[in-house]
């Protein structure tokens, strides 16, 4: 039973997604409870799975019993799912955030859906199962398929409100498909050279035959893969699709996309980078990690700079997310355990923070019609939102005792350990810029205390209150428990060859 747990985890949202149109066409009121129950069961399974992995070590799932061992004379013929420390923690994060986003989405579900509500929940569950698949996949082609499963659901979900959202959804689709195509091209190149798709086997072959890394096909394949993931994780020059899509997506959907899509793509790249290419990989004379660190530094600074000049609240947070993807890449690319552990911890924190910020942005639109920074003074009517955004801002900037501080602290420590002071400077500059754009928000919220924020509207829905409160509480809890979590990630970093 415990061996099959990763597959059960994937099947819970997947099977519910398939049943949803059948049940939902007759009984529309059942859709939401069904989706919530399925994802809640997934949370429970993910926690049990994490406990099993911590107690008994990683498991590798062989589909259909086909051999997956990478030691000769066997060849990894079958499809493999890797359920190791990193994956199991990611699974917990993905399932909890997905449940929270579903829970939050209730009062904000677009009214225009009508009878299509069942299909809406089907798409959300498909998205969640696709993300679960990416986290678990131990095979580069599998990653491609799951990337597309989650991305296709995301395109459709972004387009729900109609009008301008359709245009950004189309743009997202074109760029996302281009990214996936680049990734597939990379997979073809690697397969043509090594004859394997299994990540562990690729890693072994590259470790055994270092000359592979000088072959043009492997260099080209790696580059294409990185471009593909760069689009999927919205790395700075390739981020064009993200701000529009997150701004115009329904308020109930943008937290889910913001929290999970880019982070899981980043996770998939980390897995391929460390487990297949190896931490010491070099292309030509250039260290791959050094290159990544450079990209990350540029993205961190420019993303925060762009966030500073935005007027629309959701767009501002979207650029904040782009900046944080850069920060995580900086930490990953320092080539030591401290940086890696800090980054992975920050990745989870960032997912929570992005979810929380978009919760607040969506609730502000729903409750007070506040879309832009100008309207923010109306937020004073809702103490829950003010409290949540204050705590989340502390975490985004990196003030203890929130989780954001400990992540960033370890990223900086890792960069100092590697003697990479330009990376330290980039993190500090990005932090200052993040502080600057939150400063803009708080000045708008708290300035002109005499000015009446307008008549008090309807009471905030209790589930909305709870769902803006939970991420804020979660970043503090993550901060207080940061020590064991970071220690755990250090162990996974050792497994990654650092």
């Amino acid at each position, binding site marked *: 039973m415990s061996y099959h747990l990763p597959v059960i985890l994937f099947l819970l949202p997947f099977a519910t997604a398939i049943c949803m149109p059948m049940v939902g066409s007759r009984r529309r009121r059942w859709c939401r409870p069904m989706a919530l129950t399925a994802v809640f069961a997934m949370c429970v399974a993910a926690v049990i799975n994490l406990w099993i992995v911590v107690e008994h070590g990683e498991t590798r799932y062989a589909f259909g019993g086909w051999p997956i061992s990478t030691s000769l004379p066997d060849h990894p013929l079958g499809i493999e799912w890797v359920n190791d420390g990193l994956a199991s923690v990611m699974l917990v994060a993905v399932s909890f955030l997905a449940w929270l986003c579903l829970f939050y989405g209730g009062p904000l579900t677009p009214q225009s859906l009508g009878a299509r509500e069942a299909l809406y929940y089907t798409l959300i569950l498909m998205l969640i199962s696709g993300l679960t698949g990416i986290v678990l996949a131990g095979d580069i*082609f599998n990653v491609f*398929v799951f990337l597309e499963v989650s991305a296709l659901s995301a395109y459709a979900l972004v*387009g729900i409100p109609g009008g301008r959202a*359709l245009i950004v959804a189309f743009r997202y689709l*074109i760029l996302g*498909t281009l990214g996936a*195509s680049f990734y*597939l091209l990379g997979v*073809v190149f690697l397969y043509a050279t090594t004859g394997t798709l299994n990540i562990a086997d690729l890693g072994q072959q590259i470790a055994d035959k270092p000359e592979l890394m000088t072959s043009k096909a492997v260099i080209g394949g790696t580059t294409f893969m990185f471009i593909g993931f760069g689009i999927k994780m919205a790395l700075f020059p390739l981020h064009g699709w993200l701000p529009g899509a997150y701004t115009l997506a329904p308020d109930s959907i943008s937290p889910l996309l913001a929290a999970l899509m880019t982070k899981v793509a980043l996770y998939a790249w980390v897995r391929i980078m460390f487990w297949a290419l190896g931490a010491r990989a070099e292309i030509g004379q250039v260290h791959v990690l050094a290159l990544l660190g450079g990209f990350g530094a540029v993205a961190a600074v420019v993303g925060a700079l762009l966030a500073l000049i935005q007027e629309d609240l959701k767009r501002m947070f979207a650029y904040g997310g782009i900046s944080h993807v850069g920060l995580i890449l900086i930490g990953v690319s320092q080539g030591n355990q401290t940086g890696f552990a800090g980054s992975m911890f920050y990745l989870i924190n960032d997912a929570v923070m992005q979810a929380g910020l978009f919760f607040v942005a969506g609730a502000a639109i729903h409750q007070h019609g506040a879309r832009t920074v100008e309207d923010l003074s109306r937020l004073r009517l809702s103490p829950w939102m003010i409290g949540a955004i204050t705590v989340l801002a502390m975490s985004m900037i990196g003030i203890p005792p929130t989780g954001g501080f400990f992540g960033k602290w370890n990223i900086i420590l890792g960069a100092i350990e590697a003697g990479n002071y330009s990376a330290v400077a980039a993190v500090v500059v990005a932090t200052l810029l993040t502080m600057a754009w939150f400063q803009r928000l708080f000045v708008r919220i708290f300035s002109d205390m005499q000015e009446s924020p307008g008549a008090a509207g309807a009471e905030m829905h209790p589930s909305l209150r709870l769902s803006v409160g939970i991420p804020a509480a979660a970043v503090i809890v993550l901060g207080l428990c940061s020590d064991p979590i970071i220690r755990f990630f250090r162990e996974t970093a050792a497994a990654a060859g650092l």
Partner: protein
Amino acid sequence: MLELIEAALQRPNFIAFVVLFLWGFFIMVTHSNLVKKLIGMYLVQTSILLLLVTIGVKQDATVPILQGSDAVLSTADQMTPADYTNPLPHVLALTAIVVQVATLGVSLALVTAIYRKYGSLDEDEILQRIE
């Protein structure tokens, strides 16, 4: 330089795929008509699929179905892998085609919805109408 050209000419199919890929990419980037963008996207994906299929091919090899008498087939050691083409790239291409079809379906649905809303397929015209 001459060696490079010579090496490239040995695999003319690869040149065709590169041309197809870049052509599709060019259409995707330059055309403002949404359906033409999709055609470009389709060309890009197809060129990758063709590349995927061709890398499984071997000279003088046949379909990957075991041949010979039953006695020979009972011992897998006696078969020579060089006699058979690699079936895996075909399977991968099949899966990728399914993904491609799904993508095309979603994208055409989006284009239809855009056309119903704005009455145009030209991106510039639509953007003008929004403003």
